[in-house]
């Protein structure tokens, strides 16, 4: 295929990628977007492959088949595990970028110094640093989300953490600068190796101080890094398709991470440069009063008498896999003419939009899923707010308690409902270790237990009473 044909197909692929993202603006057209994206990818791949200088076909086909063999099962994971899968994919993307940068450096090193121009060297260093940070960072994020044993679950912080990380990054940039200055000196391969090792280490150090509640932001940032790594690769290989697709990806990660930051009232710069703010030490519990537990029977009676019920799901619903039981409860209440809505906080769950996907999986129509800003105005008229495994996103301390670590974070105003039921696994504080005043409110009744079991019992109670 001649170079101008290749460019033409790259142009078509770029246009399709843009359409692909454009069609994501509505659930009705979104599947078309996936088709457009997949075709763009196929076109870009084929146009690159069928160039005369590409040989080595056998091994490449083998690599593609291996990729399909691993990718297929990864696409069948349960949607509760969607955050882990996404993080793992970011790791693969980062690895690919880092390896291509490394390979290109050594290929050009063999060709002699005139191939390693300053521009190319800077692009390669950027690609390798971004790629390998994304690789180990995402791998650790995936491990944390999957709750693997060898990955520390609790945020790990130590004295001088930010200074140490800053020094490491500084060292990597310094070594990079030396490489740019003289890409073919005798110690150059060593320096290059040093940059790679530091980037790998930095990725890990970036993730270990992060708690589960910050995961949505971090995943979005890693998404952005993976895109920027692809852009850098495009500059290295002088390939415009890589630049456009990478920029689209980077923009997406950037916007999502900004939205997540807003939803947690964190400054964007703070997150971008990895200073993820340490998690406040857990407060001494028990000072705020007592939980008031309620029985399933009376809870179901109160719900039956309601006109409007708002269900507020959180990560606890995902952990308990309770979305299908929630659907049954939704059906039971709708059958009685009760208006049921879902209030979705932007950072509920472990990745952006996590709750929406889980509820869609349980066949709940997306017209019942409302964003925080849309539902908050209705909360005072709401008879029952049912909190399913959510904690910080309904904590009124965010509005009133200036000393609270989550002060200023926008929340769903569950406390304004007439009656609140909160389903909670245990009496321990939530992930961030912050006590939740909502649970001690005089309108609040606690339903302790696994979310799936509790909601199952509620459904049983409701079906029993309807005389069926």
């Amino acid at each position, binding site marked *: 295929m001649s170079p101008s044909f290749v460019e033409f197909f790259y142009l078509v692929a770029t246009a399709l*990628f843009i359409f692909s*993202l454009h069609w*994501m603006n509505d*659930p009705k057209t979104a599947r078309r977007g*996936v088709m457009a994206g*997949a075709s763009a*990818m196929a076109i870009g791949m084929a146009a690159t*492959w069928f*160039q005369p200088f590409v040989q080595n076909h056998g091994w*490449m086909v083998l*690599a*593609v088949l291996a*990729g*399909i063999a*691993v*990718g*297929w099962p*990864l*696409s069948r994971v349960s949607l509760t595990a*969607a955050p882990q*899968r*996404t993080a793992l*994919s970011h790791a*693969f993307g980062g*690895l*690919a*970028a880092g*390896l*291509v940068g490394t*390979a290109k450096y050594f*290929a*050009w090193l063999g060709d002699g110094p*005139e*191939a390693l121009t*300053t*521009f*190319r060297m800077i692009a390669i260093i*950027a690609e390798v640093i971004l790629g390998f940070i994304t690789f180990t960072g995402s791998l650790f994020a995936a491990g944390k989300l999957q709750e693997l044993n060898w990955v520390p679950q609790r945020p790990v912080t130590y004295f001088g953490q930010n200074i140490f990380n800053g020094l490491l990054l500084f060292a990597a940039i310094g070594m990079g600068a030396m490489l740019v200055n003289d890409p073919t000196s005798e110690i150059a391969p060593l320096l290059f190796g040093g940059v790679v090792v530091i980037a790998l280490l930095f990725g890990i150090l970036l993730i270990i101080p992060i708690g589960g509640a910050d995961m949505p932001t971090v995943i979005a940032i890693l998404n952005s890094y993976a*895109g920027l790594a692809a852009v850098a690769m*495009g500059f290295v290989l002088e*390939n*415009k398709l890589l*630049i*456009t697709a990478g*920029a689209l990806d980077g923009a997406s990660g*950037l*916007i999502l991470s*900004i*939205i997540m930051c807003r939803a947690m009232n964190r400054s964007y710069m703070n997150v*971008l440069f990895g200073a993820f703010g340490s998690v406040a030490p857990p407060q001494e519990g028990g000072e705020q009063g007592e939980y008031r537990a309620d029985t399933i029977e009376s809870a179901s009676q109160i719900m039956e008498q309601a006109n409007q019920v708002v269900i507020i799901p959180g990560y606890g619903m995902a952990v308990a896999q309770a979305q299908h039981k929630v659907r049954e409860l939704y059906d039971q209440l709708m059958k009685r003419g009760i208006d049921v809505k879902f209030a979705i906080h932007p950072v509920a769950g472990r990745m*952006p*939009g996590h709750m*929406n*996907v889980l509820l869609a999986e349980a066949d709940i129509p*997306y*017209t019942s*899923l409302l*964003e925080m*800003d*849309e539902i908050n105005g209705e909360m005072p008229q709401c008879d029952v707010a049912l909190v399913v495994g959510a904690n910080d996103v309904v904590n009124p301390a965010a509005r009133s308690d200036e000393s609270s670590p989550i002060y200023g974070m926008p929340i769903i105003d569950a406390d304004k409902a007439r009656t609140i039921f909160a389903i909670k696994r245990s009496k321990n504080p939530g992930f961030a270790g912050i006590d939740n005043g909502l649970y001690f409110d005089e309108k609040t009744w606690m339903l302790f237990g696994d979310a799936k079991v509790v909601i199952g019992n509620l459904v049983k109670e409701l079906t029993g009473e309807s005389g069926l």
Partner: protein
Amino acid sequence: MKESRRYLPRSVIVVISTVVAIIGVALAAHSMTTETLVASPAVVPSHAPGDVDYWGMVFVFLLSAFVGLGVIRRVSRLLYTPLMSLTNAISAIAVVGAILVAGPDYPIEIRVLGLIALFASVTNIVSGFLITDRMLKMFKKD
């Protein structure tokens, strides 16, 4: 809804202009060193990039970043998880780079790196697009 769209200007423009500034510095440094290369007649750049349009690439990057921001801002909030797995699949465009490294007649070590990158990218392409479609199938109106 309105409020969430207000955030674009400051932080985004800071980030994009930082990236563009870095590229600009790289280009300036590049042009300085190329001049010295040309000045020394001993060096005949056989593999040196002759007339690569670096500024053109920067333009492409800048414009596609803004197109990306414009398009992504309109994405339905319901679909953030599928959006992320879709862009994840799109970032597997690194597959192009992997082919360009694994394909040509490079030494074997380099090609192996390319093959691993190819494997990793194809994994992302397959799993990314398939799981996105699987998720989107579930979104029903009623």
